[in-house]
């Protein structure tokens, strides 16, 4: 019995009138935990009752502490009839179970009713006394910290990164139980809310146990999702990355290491292993321990904020590297071996992190993804989650083998998702294949002896763009050139990844949000026929989405995508694909070619004219975009087009600054396109449409930028004004004669209009950037498309923002091209070649995915799109897995650049002294952001994870302002409840906030609607850095005021 939970009910306010006669309420409170219930006295005739109860004490197992939510119900006492419920508050007490998080939960919580919404507030105090439990076989995992943040949390240091943890639990959905026919909607909703709360508690506890087994103490990048499978049940699943974290305790540790990474890197000679993929020799060191540790070197731990003393160490590191670097090669190969073997021992070498300590990521191979269409079984046994487990295990296996095919031993930026329609479910997983630095993955015991030498070996930045696979034995045809930065290694010409832009990557100009949008009609069908139809459509969709992304990227004049997220949504009669990513120009990658249009019908004058008109438009657009995003790469001196076999190093040419070359740069004619250009062949109206749609994307109005990653390259002076928002749109398609084109256009317009609306609404924040723009598409009904967007708008200081990272660098330019010209004709070849040769068998045929994976020729210049499918023989459900591996490229990073990092917090400017804590200065205001940081502020404490699930239902839709009024109010209420919980934990912000689900259903004829929302994030305390001496005199006084209550805000 290792815990005592204590609860005190203080007061209520703004209660609703429950007694019409007196216009007052006789309220009392029931406090329930597990099976124990306490009640307060009835406070007669008041809308602002003061209960001031005694401490209600619950003596409970810590297992229950983790699983159960504290349930507080406010009721109106009625002498003659049943007491009426006013509403409830569920409090997750998990944050009280870690030693470093919150110690008390105390504050005003909105009283929530699933039918009426928020009805007043209640003031509650909750404490937990935890006794130590020495039982080794315990079922609880108290003390394991959870973070939604997909990087090492700011005030921690990662001692060891253990790796992937996953778990899922299933249950029957109360909404579909027989009893639901006779109980009220309120009772049903509450049963569901409570069940999900219980299940996520259980899930978190189980994951915690796995972490303890791995000897970790935290889960980073924790992502928990619900699958509402309807009649077949409810699945709650979670993935994360187990770590051992150390709290940086001394205040000095928060001091900035603002320029340490760049400086020290500069001095490290570039020393890249020329052939990183020697699988060949060397005794593989068997590592008994399954964990691989990541030992943060003191000097490189930007993530863990190196302290003052650490800073003093850095020069040593840099200087010592000179000679030792030479020996680094073989040594490193050995380590790689060790790393690989260590990773191979893990079932899944996956990491849900998207941002890493510098040096962690050695090479990026490409995006790997896998999808599988499943039929949900009707009979379902809650005690056997094995089926679902097996489904995911298969997908993960696929991902792993794809990564291997790309010469990578790990997958980073890994995520999983589902889309369910009736009994069909698409499971998707994606990530970025990568090679991780052995230094960070060595076994803990070796740390001491290896660390010293390894530090000298760090790749100096451009390494992550270099191909990890053997270029003579490439998994797919790719167009390789020498890295534009270091000239030593090969890089692909385009790089796609699911991770955030590494902080040390050198980017030219600014980035932008790039989206590919696609709809495909599908016949309505049942069960297996339906699953087959979907499986057959999937590869085409993936291919088209990919083509669109590539075209749009070229149109922007950029060469890399970060944060790529492809969502395929299944509906009754259509499939939707939406891919979002942030395009950037990586200095290490070659300049992208233009797009060329070729007509199919020669000798048609007007047609030719039309073509050339289009061509001109495209060229203009590219030129305009380059200007807009300030992409002025240094002109390439020479290009060597030739064999992929490494040639002797060419002499390099020095370009001192971009201004020198600026006059040459912008020339955009077809000469540049001859080799590099993408050729779009227009042979029918479809293709015409495609070209048109390319040109319909309107750039954001001036003063606006947008990206779906955390940081916008090229902007480094954020001010403190942030505005997180959620926007939801639902459109009804006219059902008459829907064609794919009409559908595409509707969908495209929907997304574009939504973005336009956002720009308009946020115009008062200009200049500003929409960061972490997250689109979610769902198809709630036949003719309805719902798009939900959550993002944060951050203002930046215009004057300072213009100092983009200028690549004034010596640049040696050597390029080798693997391509001959035929390869450039991508679309047709791909269609005629690869697709027909790989028809997708409807079922029954069993292809080994691994074998098909390696043999697929389909490629558009270093991008392979390979689909393999295999159908399970099991007849109870059809399984078709579409696989797709996309390869990636890498941007080289200049070793010499001393530019300020585009640090999200403007660390360079603000971080020199720690601000005095002013915890009470922002009482009442809780900021919310999907990012892992707060601009202009330091996070001093993580208080625990926020994971909330709400259901709202109405039977008076019209009276509540229709669907818009209903959902608007509900989302506002959800925000309010999140803020209230954070404030009660003593926090003033939620970071890494995400709305994971927003399921909306309406029945206007019955005047009813229902909505389910699931949100999560990390509650934190942040301290503003505003009063520090600042280079920029432009302190955001004016900006921060509206967001901070009280005049006491420090400015």
């Amino acid at each position, binding site marked *: 019995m290792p815990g005592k939970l204590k609860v005190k009910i203080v007061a209520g*306010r*703004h209660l609703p009138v429950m007694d019409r006669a007196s216009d007052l309420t006789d309220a009392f409170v029931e406090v329930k935990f597990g099976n124990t219930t306490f009640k307060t006295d009835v406070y007669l005739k008041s809308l602002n009752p003061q209960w001031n109860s005694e401490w209600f004490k619950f003596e409970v197992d810590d297992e229950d502490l983790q699983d159960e939510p504290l349930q507080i119900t406010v009721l109106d006492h009625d002498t003659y009839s049943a007491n009426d419920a006013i509403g409830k508050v569920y409090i997750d007490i998990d944050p009280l179970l870690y030693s470093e998080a919150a110690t008390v939960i105390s504050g*005003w919580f*909105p009283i929530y009713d699933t039918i009426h919404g*928020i009805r007043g*507030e209640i003031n509650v105090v909750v404490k937990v006394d935890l006794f130590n439990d020495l039982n080794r076989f315990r079922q609880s995992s108290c003390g394991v910290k959870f973070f939604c943040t997909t990087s090492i949390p700011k005030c921690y240091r990662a001692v060891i990164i253990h790796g992937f943890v996953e778990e899922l639990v299933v249950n029957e959905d109360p909404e579909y139980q027989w009893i639901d026919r006779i109980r009220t909607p309120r009772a049903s909703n509450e049963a569901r809310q409570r069940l999900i709360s219980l299940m996520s508690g259980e899930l978190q506890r189980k994951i915690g146990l796995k972490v303890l087994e791995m000897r970790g103490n935290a889960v980073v990048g924790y992502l928990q999702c619900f699958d509402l499978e309807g009649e077949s049940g409810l699945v709650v699943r979670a993935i994360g990355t187990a770590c051992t974290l150390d709290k940086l305790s001394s205040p000095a540790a928060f001091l900035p290491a603002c320029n340490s990474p760049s400086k020290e890197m500069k001095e490290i000679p570039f020393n890249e292993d020329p052939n990183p993929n020697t699988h060949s020799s060397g005794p593989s060191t068997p590592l008994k321990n399954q964990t691989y540790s990541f030992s943060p070197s003191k000097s490189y731990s930007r993530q863990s904020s190196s302290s003052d003393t650490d800073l003093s160490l850095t020069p040593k590191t840099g200087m010592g590297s000179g000679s030792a670097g030479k020996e680094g090669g073989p040594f490193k190969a050995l380590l790689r071996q060790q790393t690989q073997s260590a990773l191979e021992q893990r079932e899944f070498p996956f990491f849900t992190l998207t941002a890493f300590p510098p040096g962690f990521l050695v090479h990026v191979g490409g995006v790997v993804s896998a999808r599988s269409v499943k039929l949900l079984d009707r009979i379902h046994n809650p005690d056997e989650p094995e089926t679902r487990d097996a489904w995911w295990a298969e997908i993960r296996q696929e991902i792993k083998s794809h990564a291997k095919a790309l010469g990578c031993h790990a997958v980073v930026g890994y995520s999983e998702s589902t889309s369910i329609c009736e009994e069909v479910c698409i499971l998707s997983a994606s990530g970025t294949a990568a090679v991780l630095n052995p230094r960070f993955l060595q076994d803990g015991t070796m740390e001491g002896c290896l660390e010293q030498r390894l530090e000298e070996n760090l790749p100096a930045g451009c390494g992550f763009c270099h191909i990890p696979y053997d270029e003579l034995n490439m998994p797919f045809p790719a167009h390789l050139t020498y890295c534009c930065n270091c000239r030593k290694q090969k890089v692909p010409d385009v790089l796609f990844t699911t991770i955030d832009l590494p902080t040390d990557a050198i980017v030219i100009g600014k980035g932008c949000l790039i989206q590919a949008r696609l709809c495909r009609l599908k016949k309505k069908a049942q069960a297996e026929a339906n699953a087959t139809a979907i499986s057959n459509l999937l590869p085409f969709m993936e291919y088209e989405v990919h083509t669109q992304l590539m075209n749009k990227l070229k149109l922007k004049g950029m060469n890399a995508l970060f944060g790529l997220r492809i969502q395929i949504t299944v509906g009754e009669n259509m499939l939707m694909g939406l891919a979002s990513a942030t395009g950037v120009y990586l200095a290490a990658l070659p300049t992208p070619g233009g797009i060329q249009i070729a007509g199919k019908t020669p000798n048609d004058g007007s047609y030719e004219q039309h073509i050339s008109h289009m061509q001109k438009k495209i060229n203009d657009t590219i030129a305009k975009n380059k200007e807009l995003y300030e992409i002025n790469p240094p002109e390439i001196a020479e290009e060597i087009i030739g064999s992929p076999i490494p040639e002797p190093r060419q002499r390099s040419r020095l370009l001192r600054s971009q201004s020198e070359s600026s006059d040459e740069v912008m020339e955009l004619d077809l000469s540049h396109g001859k080799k590099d250009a993408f050729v779009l062949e227009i042979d029918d109206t479809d293709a015409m449409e495609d070209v048109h749609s390319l040109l319909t994307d309107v750039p954001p*109005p001036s003063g606006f930028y947008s990206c779906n990653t955390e940081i916008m390259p090229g902007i480094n002076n954020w001010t403190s004004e942030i*505005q*997180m*928002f*959620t*926007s*939801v*749109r*639902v*459109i*009804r*398609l*006219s059902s008459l004669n829907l064609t794919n084109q009409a559908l595409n256009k*509707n969908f495209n*317009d*929907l997304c574009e*209009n939504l973005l*336009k*609306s*956002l*720009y*308009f*609404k946020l*115009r008062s924040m200009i200049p500003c950037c929409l960061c972490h723009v997250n689109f979610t598409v769902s198809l709630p009904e036949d003719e*309805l498309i*719902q798009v939900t967007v959550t993002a944060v708008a951050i203002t930046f200081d215009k004057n300072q923002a213009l100092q983009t990272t200028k690549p004034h660098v010596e640049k040696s330019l050597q390029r080798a091209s693997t391509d001959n010209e035929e390869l450039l004709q991508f679309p047709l070849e791909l269609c005629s070649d690869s697709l027909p040769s790989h028809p997708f068998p409807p079922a029954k045929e069993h292809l080994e995915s691994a074998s098909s994976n390696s043999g697929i020729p389909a490629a558009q210049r270093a991008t392979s799109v390979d689909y393999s499918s295999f159908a399970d023989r099991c007849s109870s459900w059809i399984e078709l897995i579409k696989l797709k591996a996309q390869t990636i490229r890498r941007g080289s990073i200049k070793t010499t650049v001393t530019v300020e990092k585009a640090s999200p917090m403007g660390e360079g400017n603000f971080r020199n002294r720690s601000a005095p804590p002013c915890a009470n200065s922002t009482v009442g*205001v*809780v*900021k*919310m952001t999907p990012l892992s940081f707060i601009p202009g502020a330091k996070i001093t404490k993580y208080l625990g994870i926020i994971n909330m699930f709400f259901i709202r239902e109405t039977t008076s839709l019209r009276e509540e*302002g229709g*669907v*818009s*009024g209903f*959902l*608007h*109010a509900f*989302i*506002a*209420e959800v*925000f*309010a409840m999140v*803020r*209230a919980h954070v404030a009660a934990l003593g926090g003033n912000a939620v970071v890494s906030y995400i709305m994971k689900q927003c399921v*909306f259903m309406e029945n206007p004829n019955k005047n009813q609607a229902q909505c389910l929302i699931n949100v999560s994030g990390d509650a934190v305390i942040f301290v503003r850095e505003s009063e520090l001496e600042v280079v920029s005199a432009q302190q955001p006084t004016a900006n921060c*005021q*509206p*967001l*901070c*209550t*009280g005049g006491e805000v420090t400015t």
Partner: protein
Amino acid sequence: MTSELDIFVGNTTLIDEDVYRLWLDGYSVSDAVALRVRSGILEQTGATAAVLQSDTMDHYRTFHMLERLLHAPPKLLHQLIFQIPPSRQALLIERYYAFDEAFVREVLGKKLSKGTKKDLDDISTKTGITLKSCRRQFDNFKRVFKVVEEMRGSLVDNIQQHFLLSDRLARDYAAIVFFANNRFETGKKKLQYLSFGDFAFCAELMIQNWTLGAIGEAPTDPDSQVDDMDVDLDKEFLQDLKELKVLVADKDLLDLHKSLVCTALRGKLSVFSEMEANFKNLSRGLVNVAAKLTHNKDVRDLFVDLVEKFVEPCRSDHWPLNDVRLFLNQYSASVHSLDGFRHPTLWDRYMGTLRGCLLRLYHD
């Protein structure tokens, strides 16, 4: 393709001041969109009409949800649903309770009852203010009235405390409440030249000097329930005013008063002869107004009487404002020199306020 649902919810609630004004002015969404289009916002921002429509709808929905809270402004401060910076909260409240001059002139002094509410149609037609806006303003008056009507203490402070209005706006509301409670007639044709400001000025003087609260600055008996009421005129004081009648009823006293005033003002007034000729009429008018105030009906007609009995005669003789001031000062002061007059304090309480009011009311 039709939009079924379209919402935007910010963690910090977005408030567009221009749209708020349109909403307060009672425009429908489509009218508001049309007005915004006319303002040239599309050209400035490059937005489309559809975007504007969606934006306007969103703001209207937000305002609609906020309206419930605006009815009790302290709730807006303590509620958790909308995160709004304090400066914005103040703006929301202030604008919501702001009113149109044209509207308030129509309603001032009327009973804030259902009957008056029915007349809002006519007021709307007459003033060109939308019916919706009229209703809002009327309901605001009524709401404030209901809350502070029975309260003790300073009227302005009470309003400020319960509605969180700025000092200026709270004073205006105090005047509105005071007028509504005492039902002063303000709508007569004769009074049309007066602005709300004129009345509010008078109301403030009257609240300061003629109500129960006026003498209760330092209440001797804290338990006294009626001690500190700003809303009602001091009945006892009004009764006492009858005593002033002697000033005109006693012919000697009247003559003496006249001679004192004339002596003092000789050569100082440009309209001396007119003053001399009219003195008795004017004095009778002013004193009779005082004597009649015991009757509720006459209290209501106070302003009509003042204009009829004093302002109009003076204006017809083209008295300059400065002469009016000199006259009133002398007229008030001279009473102290009348040996037979035994109510100088009462006179000062009456005349001090009246002088201020008359000076304010004396304009074209």
